[in-house]
């Protein structure tokens, strides 16, 4: 099985990755090969198997509704590439 180049472009757009046209065929081939590998799973009948999302079967814990006011605005903005007046700044969002 080989996936269409168009699908790879679409997936790249979904993942917000830019793929150079030049590298697209090679990437498409690699992904196709990996998908061929994973397609082995189709040999198995899994009709009645319950999907396993977690390694250990346990319920989620819950925490009390308590405000922990960290007041760490400066520390949390310190790694941002672009900050303006206490906000994270990004190129204009057009709706």
């Amino acid at each position: 099985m080989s996936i269409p180049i168009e699908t790879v472009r679409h997936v790249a757009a979904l993942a917000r990755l830019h793929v150079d046209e030049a590298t697209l065929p090679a990437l498409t081939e690699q992904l196709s090969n990996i998908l061929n590998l994973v397609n082995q799973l189709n040999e198995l009948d899994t009709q009645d198997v319950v999907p396993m999302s977690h390694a250990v079967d346990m319920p989620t814990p819950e925490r009390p509704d308590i405000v922990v006011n960290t007041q760490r605005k400066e520390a949390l903005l310190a790694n941002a590439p672009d900050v303006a007046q206490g906000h994270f700044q990004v190129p204009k969002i057009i709706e």
Partner: protein
Amino acid sequence: MTLVQAASLLRTRQISAQELTTAFLERIQRLNPIINAFITVDHEGAMQAAKQADARLNNGTATPMTGIPIGVKDLFCTENLTTTCGSKMLAQFRPPYESTVTRKLKEAGAVILGKTNMDEFAMGSSNETSFFGPVKNPWDISRIPGGSSGGSAAALAAQLALATIGSDTGGSIRQPAALTGITGLKPTYGRVSRSGMIAFASSLDQAGPMAWSAADAAMVLHTIAGYDPLDSTSIQADVPDYVNALATRMDGIRIGIPTEYRPDNLNAEIQKALTEAEQTFRDLGASLVPISLPHTRYAIPTYYIIAPAEASSNLARYDGIRFGYRCDDPKDLKDMYTRSRNEGFGAEVKRRIMLGTYVLSSGYYDAYYRKAQKVRRLIADDFHQAFQHVDLILTPTTPTTAFPLGDKIDDPIAMYLSDLFTISVNLAGLPAMSIPCGADQLGLPIGMQMIAPILKEDKLLSAAHAFQTATPWHQRKPEP
């Protein structure tokens, strides 16, 4: 010198933590340019910690870990100490918080020498995908040390630390441990908190110790294990005293030998080392039982759906807004996203994000992701059934010994297959260890894997300790 020996010298004040730390820092300074095991060396922080450790050793508030110089894989967030995850994306990232694992180590008085190299975002089996360059195997610097915790393994093998912390998603502790001749333990999923450990595949990732012996690993695990209210997937169970549980005999222990882990084409030297190890276990009083784990061959396909799917989502937060790399002069929002991510991530990371995005996308979810989750259960059930009959399972850790740098980096599938024997354990959430059990003709280490039921790390460590009491393999060290 092992961690246990160093702890004894520190406790009896025959050596100070500052002397010990200085010695390791000097060795790092000399050898790290060759091995490239550390991305960041924290001289100042380490000396500061060593000074505090000496104070604790003097005033009686020390723990067995106080003053022990260690290395930590560079995906554990350390407050105000750069944490790169082996990626250009986070090359400048200074976390404003501390991972639970490093917090516990610091509280115990351990001295963190620095952050060890790794495959980018822990995606790789050779440590060649690191933005900070490949790590060299101290046994032969033309060879890879394994990955993704390659820096932690090589640092230990080159004696740049007394213990290191790694993380294991599909074998990332055990595979490099095997290839560098050290002891590595991947605990039960949820035994060690993931809080502050940068995620690759959330349902598979688990932190664990890498050390020279099972006894050393037991001490480190005891320090980092336990329930953490900051991690909803951490298990609410008491932490046993792993050190006291260590035994030297294995009478009555049943060890399962799964046929699926001895393929005909298995490297003959590895086959031979395993056969010898089996005899050692018999001599120690254990019995060997042939077992079957019939879904083993589906582990790699299952893993390469689940892990990339989770990764594609986990890595969506690297958008160049709050932290991490942002491209120069983005022309609009979309350009900022795509170019920052394109320039910030390496090829393997992007490949896995693409794969994960694809298998989750509309129309493919049932065929890939849900299917993989179902097979995951079949694989886990294989183990649960086997553990009705045996206490431990013994397998090789890797299909080959350390391979040369550049050998597989352009062939993703060949690289993926090097995790053949380690991946099932992560899918099932089980604890497993790799310990040295031999050497090939070139003198490269061979590792064997032992697998235990959920939360039976004590059984694992005990068996490893018994083996190490009876054999010298773990004491072999590469020439300096």
